[in-house]
């Protein structure tokens, strides 16, 4: 709840910030200037973008000591489509391939026959998702426009792979390495993906119809990666930050 409260404050602050910006004298001129520049109002805009995604798996570890989920950086790409009924508001959707990867590390030690043995293993989990975001795109600015995105997304867990290894542990286990596709288990894996998206962005016009976008999106998963199999359940959620750079074309 504390995290959510901070989140709320951030957005409130952001909201007031935007209000302050919109009240500046320069912003009052927008109606007059629209006749001088190409206006996207009432038009469709197509865009492609690509960039980095930084994903975290949120899951409890309780007594699994030294068992850590670490975020992982990957590459995401996709296209977007937006319709702009008003200058300050557009409706935006798209299709994105988003790797929601993470790394699992376990480093531990035990004493066997008065000898300390280090036990270490690591696994890189790569999970490819197709996500379709639906966002309200609120924007301000004269030529360079500043965007606030709010909405949600739906998607599908498309594919996955697991690679990793472990150090040997006396006679208990040999060292091993592996790299293999992830085998989905219908009774365990929830491949439907949905959640909230919000973010910030800047769009820079290059010509009347062409522009450059730099966006930062936050995909906050609300669907558990696993189905509930037991009365005791440890839900797992993805949270992804995307930094995307792309180009747009207004039809």
């Amino acid at each position, binding site marked *: *709840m504390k*995290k*959510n*409260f901070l*989140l*709320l404050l951030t*957005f*409130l602050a*952001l*909201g*007031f910030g*935007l*209000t302050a910006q*919109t*009240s500046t004298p320069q912003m009052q001129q927008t109606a007059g200037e629209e006749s001088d520049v190409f206006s996207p109002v009432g038009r469709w805009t197509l865009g492609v973008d690509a960039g980095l995604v930084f994903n975290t798996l*949120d*899951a*409890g*570890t*309780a*007594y*699994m*000591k030294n068992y850590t989920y670490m975020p992982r950086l990957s590459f995401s790409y996709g296209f977007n489509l937006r319709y702009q009924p008003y200058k*300050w*508001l557009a409706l935006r959707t798209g299709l994105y391939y988003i790797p929601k990867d993470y790394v*699992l590390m376990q480093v*531990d030690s*035990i004493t*066997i026959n008065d000898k300390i043995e280090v036990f270490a293993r690591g*696994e890189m989990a790569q999970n490819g998702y197709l996500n379709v975001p639906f966002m*309200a795109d*609120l924007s*301000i600015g004269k030529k360079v426009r500043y965007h606030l995105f*709010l909405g949600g997304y739906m998607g599908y867990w498309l594919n996955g792979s*697991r690679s*990793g290894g472990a150090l040997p*542990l006396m*006679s*208990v286990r*040999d060292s*091993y390495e*592996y790299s*293999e596709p992830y085998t989905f*288990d219908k*009774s*365990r894996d929830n491949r439907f993906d949905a959640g*909230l998206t*919000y973010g910030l962005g800047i769009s820079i016009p290059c010509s009347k119809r062409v522009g450059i976008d730099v966006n930062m999106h936050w995909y*906050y998963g*609300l669907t*558990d990666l*696993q189905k509930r*199999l*037991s*009365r*005791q*359940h*440890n*839900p797992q*959620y993805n949270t992804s930050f995307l930094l995307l750079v792309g180009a747009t074309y207004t039809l």
Partner: protein
Amino acid sequence: MKYSLVKIVLFSSLFLFIMTSCRKESTVSDFVNPNSRVCTTYASQFEAVWQGMDQGYVFWGHDTVNWDERYRTFKPVFDSFDHASYVSQAAYQQAYTDLFEGLLDHHLFGIFYAPGNNGKFAMVSPGVNEYEHTTYSGAEMEKELDALQKRSDLVKYIGYDATINYTYGISIPGTHFALIKGKNAGEMIAYFRFTGFSLSELLQYRYVLPSYVFAPIKAFYGTDEGYGITPKGYANNDSVVGIIIDLRGNGGGSTADLQPFIGSLAQQHSVVGYTRVKDGFGRLDYSPWAEYMVYCPSNHLLKEKPVVALVDINSVSCAELATMLIKGLPQGKVIGERTYGAIGALLPNSTYSHDLFYSGCMGDYTMYEYYRQYIGEGVDYLVQHVYRSEYKGKYPFYIYTSTFNMVDKDYNQVEGVGVKPDIEVLFNRNRLWNEGLDIQLERALRYIKTGR
């Protein structure tokens, strides 16, 4: 527009604030390591056992027992024990027997203790229940060895009976070596039988114990140092055209024996199957499958020849791994009955097992050590003189269960079903007792002589 924008931003922020609270709360903060959980009531002992099994049992991917249903059924039973003025030993035992009934793991063995005026003690072993309901009769080793020694085609026999081992105060498996005439003149079949996979441990005492203890091993392998099969071993003798490894009644033991004593029957490293451990709190959270390889030592069978594993329902654990290895050899054959089905390897010490792999043996390991130390004195002695003083006010438990889920080379589940023989020959007690004929051994000899 200004006020609209403010309203939208505020509304959206509020919406997001509410929505981000929609993630389900994790219950893992309630999870306690069963190795360190302190129980002081019947109900808390049940909770710890149920949760430990829910998280650390490695066969949920195959097991058909509805563990949640078991919770709903037995939680009220254990709750009622805490409120009852008297709980009988029989009721306590029955509750745990029924809780574990039908679980696949044939290694599974649980000990539970509840203090009180008389101290309640319960023990479960669901695999034994399945074993007792099979139609397989198992073998009688003494009679089989007797039949072996009376064979007319016996060339040589060297045996060491495990029963003598108590003289030395260490656990020694019985070992038996025989040479039996082959199909053609001058041909022989080498036979080796041992009752447990503790040969490597036994060989550590070769400077202490008399040499006749090691004679069967030395005859077959050509060495009593546990380095595989040297050229001096009968197994490598050119006149030996086939080998029978008799694993009937072999109760298993240390996997350290597999490489020198079974892996040496191959010409190269053998993938016996694949293993995995639990990898999270979810019932189906598993690590990827890892190859279970038995390495071939440099001293190995020089020439490929038929190798038969003779097995029965009393071939357990490591004996079953050995059976799987022999089954995978180019000239390997398994003859006899299905094996017991306790194949998932384990680490009995719960600290090594559950604290490292989050699967397998769990609970108070000292309880198991006391059990092994004093069970010879009888359960009453154990409960009245050991547990009663040691666990005053505590409700300890210990569960011996597989650390590793194992499947065969083709990813077939073998736990609870055992290794099926290539040629099934059921144990025939009447013929063994009345005619002195071991029909399983006869079939193995026929296979080596005829190739069929």
